[in-house]
C-alpha cells in the first residue's frame, strides 16, 4: 500500500488538481483604441439627437407657419420660410435615420448642408439686412471652426463663405419678391437665424465636449484603477502559484517520507510478528512436553536456543523501532521549533565540532584543515548540527589507507559564499547522490555505524534556513558537501589568525 498525503488529509490533494496556467486578459493598461470606441458611440448619440432636434424644428416651424397663415386668413405663404423649414424637416429625419444605421459622417454632412442651405435661402430674401446677417454668420462660423475639433468644421467655414456668395447673388437676382422689413427687425431676424443655426449645434457640442472630457477622464481613471486591480490580481495569482509549488514540493517530501517510514518501520514489525509467532510455537511445544512426564528436559534443550533467539530478535526490533521513531521526532523538531537568527561564529562552531570528534580523528590519523570562516546570522544549534553531521560523516567514511584529510572552508561563487566540507574518504557513486539525503537511506553503509538520519537532517536544516545543499563526489575520490546560507544572513569576515588559516592537526 502506498501512503500519500490524501490518505492522511482527506480532501487536500494539491497534486490532483494543478492550478490552470495564469492567463488574465488585458493585464496591462487599456489602449486608447478602446476609448475611441466609446467616443464614437457618444458622438453618434449626440449627432442623432441633433438630427432629431433639427427635424423636429423643421416640422414644428412649418406646422406653426401654416397654422399661422390659416388663422390669419388669406395670408400668402412665403417661400422664404416654407422652403428652409421643409428642407430642415426632411433632412433632419433623414440624418436621424442615417444615425440609426451608424452612418455618422453622412448624418453630420446632411445636417450641415441643410442648415447652411436653409439659412442662405432665409437670409437671402431679407432686404437691407443680408450683408450684416451673412457677415455675422460667416464670422461666427469661421471663429468657431478652430475651437471645435474635427475637419468638418473647417469645411463648414468654407461652405458658409460659398453660401454668403450665393446669398449675395440671390439678393441681386431675387427669386421671389423681397419682403421689405424695417431695418432693425431685419437685423434682429438675421441675428436670430444665425444664432439658431450656429448656436444650437455649438451649444450642443460644447455640452458634449464637456461631458466627453469628463467621461474621458473618468474612463482613464477607471482604466488605471482596473489595471492596478489587475496587477494586484496577477501578483496574487503568482503568489498562489508559488505557494502551490511549495505545497506540492512539501507534499512530495511527505510522500517520500511516508514511503520510507512505511518501509522502515515495517521491517522491525515484521520481526516482531515473526519471532513472536516463533516464540508462541516454541512455548506451545514446551507446554505439550510438560504434559508428558519426563519429556520436559529434552524438549527444553531443543527449544531453549529457539526461544532465546526469538527473544533476542524481539528486543532488538523494539530497540530499532524506538530508534527510528526517535529519529523521526528529531527530524520533525527541525520544522516545529523556531529557528533563531543571531550572529554565529562559524569558525568557533567548527572548532567545537572538531574538538568533540578529536578522539576519532586522532585514532584514524586524519588531518583536518579549517580555512578562515566568516560570521553569519542563523541558528547556532542548527549550524552546529550541520557541521557536526558533515564532519562526523567525513570521519566515518574516511578510507582506510592513503591520504586522510578533511578540509572545511568557504568559496565565493557568483558573490554567494559557498561553504564546504571536503574529505578524501570512500566517496559516493554519482547515481547514489540523490539517495544519500533520503531518510534512513544508507548508501555506502557497509560496516559503518549510522542511522541514515544525519544528511537528511542537514538538508532539512539548510533548506529551512533558506540555503542550498549539494554534493560533489565519485566512488574512491572523496566527497565534498557544499552548502549556502541565505544571502540576507549577513556574512561578515571574521578577523583571522595572521597566517590566514587555522591549522588544527
Amino acid at each position: 500500500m502506498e501512503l500519500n498525503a490524501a490518505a492522511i488529509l482527506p480532501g487536500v490533494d494539491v497534486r490532483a488538481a494543478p492550478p490552470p496556467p495564469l492567463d488574465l486578459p488585458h493585464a496591462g493598461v487599456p489602449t486608447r483604441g478602446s476609448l475611441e470606441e466609446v467616443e464614437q458611440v457618444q458622438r453618434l448619440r449626440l449627432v442623432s439627437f441633433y438630427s432629431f432636434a433639427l427635424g423636429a424644428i423643421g416640422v414644428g416651424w412649418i406646422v406653426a407657419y401654416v397654422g399661422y397663415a390659416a388663422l390669419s386668413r388669406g395670408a400668402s405663404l412665403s417661400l422664404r420660410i416654407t422652403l428652409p423649414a421643409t428642407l430642415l424637416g426632411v433632412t433632419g429625419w433623414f440624418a436621424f435615420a442615417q444615425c440609426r444605421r451608424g452612418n455618422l459622417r453622412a448624418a453630420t454632412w446632411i445636417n450641415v448642408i441643410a442648415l447652411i442651405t436653409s439659412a442662405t435661402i432665409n437670409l437671402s430674401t431679407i432686404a437691407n439686412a443680408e450683408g450684416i446677417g451673412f457677415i455675422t454668420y460667416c464670422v461666427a462660423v469661421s471663429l468657431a471652426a478652430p475651437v471645435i475639433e474635427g475637419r468638418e468644421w473647417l469645411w463648414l467655414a468654407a461652405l458658409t463663405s460659398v453660401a454668403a456668395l450665393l446669398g449675395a447673388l440671390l439678393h441681386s437676382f431675387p427669386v421671389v419678391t423681397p419682403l421689405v422689413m424695417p431695418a432693425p427687425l431685419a437685423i434682429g431676424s438675421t441675428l436670430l437665424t444665425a444664432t439658431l443655426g450656429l448656436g444650437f449645434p455649438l451649444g450642443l457640442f460644447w455640452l458634449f465636449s464637456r461631458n466627453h472630457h469628463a467621461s474621458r477622464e473618468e474612463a482613464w481613471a477607471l482604466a488605471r484603477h482596473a489595471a492596478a486591480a489587475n496587477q494586484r490580481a496577477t501578483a496574487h495569482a503568482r503568489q498562489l502559484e508559488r505557494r502551490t509549488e511549495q505545497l506540492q514540493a512539501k507534499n512530495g517530501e511527505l510522500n517520500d517520507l511516508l514511503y520510507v517510514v512505511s518501509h522502515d518501520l515495517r521491517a522491525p514489525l515484521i520481526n516482531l510478528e515473526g519471532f513472536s509467532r516463533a516464540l508462541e510455537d516454541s512455548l506451545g511445544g514446551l507446554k505439550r512436553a510438560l504434559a508428558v512426564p519426563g519429556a520436559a528436559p529434552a524438549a527444553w534443550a531443543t527449544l531453549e536456543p529457539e526461544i532465546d533467539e526469538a527473544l533476542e530478535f524481539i528486543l532488538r526490533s523494539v530497540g530499532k523501532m524506538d530508534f527510528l521513531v526517535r529519529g523521526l521526532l528529531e527530524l520533525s523538531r527541525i520544522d516545529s521549533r523556531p529557528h533563531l537568527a543571531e550572529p554565529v561564529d562559524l569558525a568557533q562552531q567548527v572548532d567545537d565540532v572538531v574538538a568533540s570528534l578529536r578522539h576519532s580523528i586522532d585514532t584514524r590519523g586524519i588531518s583536518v584543515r579549517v580555512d578562515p570562516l566568516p560570521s553569519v546570522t542563523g541558528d547556532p544549534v542548527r549550524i552546529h548540527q550541520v557541521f557536526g553531521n558533515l564532519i562526523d560523516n567525513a570521519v566515518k567514511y574516511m578510507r582506510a589507507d592513503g591520504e586522510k584529510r578533511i578540509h572545511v572552508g568557504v568559496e565565493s561563487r557568483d558573490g554567494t559564499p559557498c561553504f564546504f566540507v571536503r574529505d578524501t574518504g570512500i566517496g559516493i557513486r554519482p547515481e547514489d547522490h540523490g539517495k544519500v539525503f533520503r531518510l534512513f537511506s544508507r548508501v555506502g553503509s557497509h560496516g559503518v555505524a549510522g542511522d541514515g538520519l544525519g544528511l537528511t537532517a542537514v538538508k532539512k536544516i539548510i533548506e529551512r534556513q533558506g540555503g542550498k545543499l549539494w554534493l560533489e563526489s565519485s566512488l574512491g575520490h572523496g566527497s565534498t558537501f557544499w552548502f549556502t546560507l541565505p544571502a540576507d544572513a549577513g556574512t561578515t569576515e571574521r578577523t583571522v589568525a595572521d597566517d590566514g588559516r587555522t591549522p588544527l592537526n
Partner: protein
Amino acid sequence: MMDGRPSIKILLVEDDDGHARLIERNLRRVNLINPIDRVVDGQEAIDYLTNGGAFADRQRFGCPKLMLLDINLPRVDGIEVLERIKSDERLRRLPIIMLTSTDNQAEIDRCYAMGASGYVAKPVNIASLGEKLERLGMFLEIVELPELA
C-alpha cells in the same frame, strides 16, 4: 554437489538479520533442505552471481538456481539487482522471487514486468512461500535450465 548432481542452491538477498532468519526458519519448516546462501545487499548479490569481489571462489559461490531478493536493500537496491540480472544474457534465466515489506500493487506489477518469477510480501507467509517454491520446483524440473555462469 554431494551426489554428483548440482543441488538447487538458493541465494537469499536480505539486509535484515531477523527477516533472513525468519525466512530461513520458515523454509526449513516446509521441509526445504536446499542449501541457502545469504548476502546482505544488492552489490554483494551481483558480486556473488558474477563471482566478483569477495565471491571470487567459483567452487564455494557457484551460481544459485533460485534467488530470493528483497526490494529494499542498501547500496544497490533489489529493483536494480533485478534489472541487472534480467539484462545479463547469462543470468537472465535465473528465477527470482521478490521479497518486500509492503504490498504495493504498482511495485508488484513493476517487478513482474521486469521478469520476476514471484513476489512475496513480508511477513513471509509460509504457505504462500512454500507454494511458490513448490511451483517453481516443478517448473525447474520440467524445464532444463541452462548452466548459469
